[in-house]
Each structure stands twice: as structure tokens, then as C-alpha cells.
């Protein structure tokens, strides 16, 4: 399969998001409490830092391997459609998080519903772009 720079970049973001936040949720969610604990915040910061490092290094490697980094009108159209899809997920997540904030004590569930839907929205944005790049926009 011959992937463009854009597709490789999207796969990198998808895999790094799943890896970093998958690890974060797997370690933090089992210990559910009322409020977010300091060590859980440290895990979050660690996940974000590792995500940023993975993406920066990954993009440097991809750019070295694949010199053609340009995008065109089709890439931009697909990006817009992906963002539109992510917008629906994020709006749903914000609404649900507000409901959770009214119905539960503390900030743990609220923060993680919001974070979970943000990650899901990112995955939907990237995933739908990957599908459209293969199947047509």
C-alpha cells in the first residue's frame, strides 16, 4: 500500500493517541474516586508529553523518509469533513459531560467523560479522514 505523507501522518496521530490515552485510561479509570487525584493528573501530563514527543519524532522520521510533504485540495476537503464529524462527537460529549456534572459528586467523572469524548472526537476526525482518503471524498 502506497501511503502519502498525509496518510502516514494521520496513522501516526491515530496510533499515538490510542497508545497514550489508552494507557492513561487503563491506569486511571479503575481507581475511580470522587475527585481527580494528583497522581492521576501526573499520569495525564505524562500521557500528553509522551504524545507530543511521539508525534514530533514520528513526523520528523516520516518527513525524512517521504520528501513529498505537500497537500492539495482533496486533502483539505477531507480534513474539513473529518473535522465536521469530530464536531458532532465533541458536541455530544460536552452535553453529556454537563449532564454528568449536574448528576454526580466531584470532578472525576465529569473530567473523564469530557476527556474521553475529546479523545474520541480526535479519533473520529483522524479515522474518518483515513477512510475518505482510501474510499474517496
Amino acid at each position, binding site marked *: 500500500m*502506497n501511503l*502519502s505523507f498525509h496518510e502516514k501522518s494521520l496513522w501516526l496521530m491515530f496510533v499515538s493517541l490510542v497508545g497514550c490515552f489508552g494507557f492513561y485510561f487503563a491506569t486511571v479509570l479503575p481507581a475511580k474516586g470522587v475527585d481527580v487525584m494528583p497522581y492521576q493528573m501526573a499520569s495525564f501530563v505524562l500521557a500528553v508529553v509522551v504524545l507530543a514527543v511521539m508525534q514530533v519524532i514520528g513526523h520528523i522520521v516520516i518527513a525524512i523518509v517521504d520528501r513529498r510533504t505537500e497537500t*492539495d*485540495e*482533496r486533502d483539505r476537503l477531507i480534513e474539513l469533513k473529518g473535522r465536521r464529524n469530530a464536531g458532532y462527537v465533541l458536541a455530544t460529549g460536552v452535553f453529556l459531560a454537563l449532564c454528568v456534572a449536574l448528576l454526580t459528586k466531584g470532578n472525576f467523572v465529569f473530567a473523564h467523560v469530557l476527556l474521553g469524548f475529546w479523545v474520541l472526537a480526535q479519533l473520529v476526525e483522524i479515522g474518518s479522514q483515513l477512510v475518505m482518503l482510501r*474510499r*474517496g*471524498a
Partner: protein
Amino acid sequence: MGKGGSHITNDIRALRFHRGQMTQQELADRVGVTRQTVNAIEGNKYSPSLEVALRISRVFDVPLERVFQYGER
């Protein structure tokens, strides 16, 4: 655009063949899009903007309707 039900078809593959078997990458470079976009246009998976369509017809030095056809399926 696209959505798999496009009524726009094209003869880009044949035109490339008759231009000394021009590759998709060569056409993409001359038009200013990626090779993947040329491939998607050829496979009728993506309908290009008017500007890109005109640039493609200019590369082959033929009228636009020789490259792209619009018809009911």
C-alpha cells in the same frame, strides 16, 4: 463531490497512455496535486475543482470535455 455516485467520468488514463505513458506522479507534479489525488480522480472517486480540471486539460492540450464527461448513470 465524489460519494461514489459521481456522474462525472474521465479519460485521464487513456490520455496518459497516449502521452508517452505519462505516470500518475508526472501528471500530479504538472497539475500541482498529489499522486493519490490523480489516482482518485482516475478512479472516479473524486471530482476535482474546476481549476484542477482545467489544469489537467491544459497538460494534455485538449478541451475540457475531452478529459471529463458528464452523463446520467
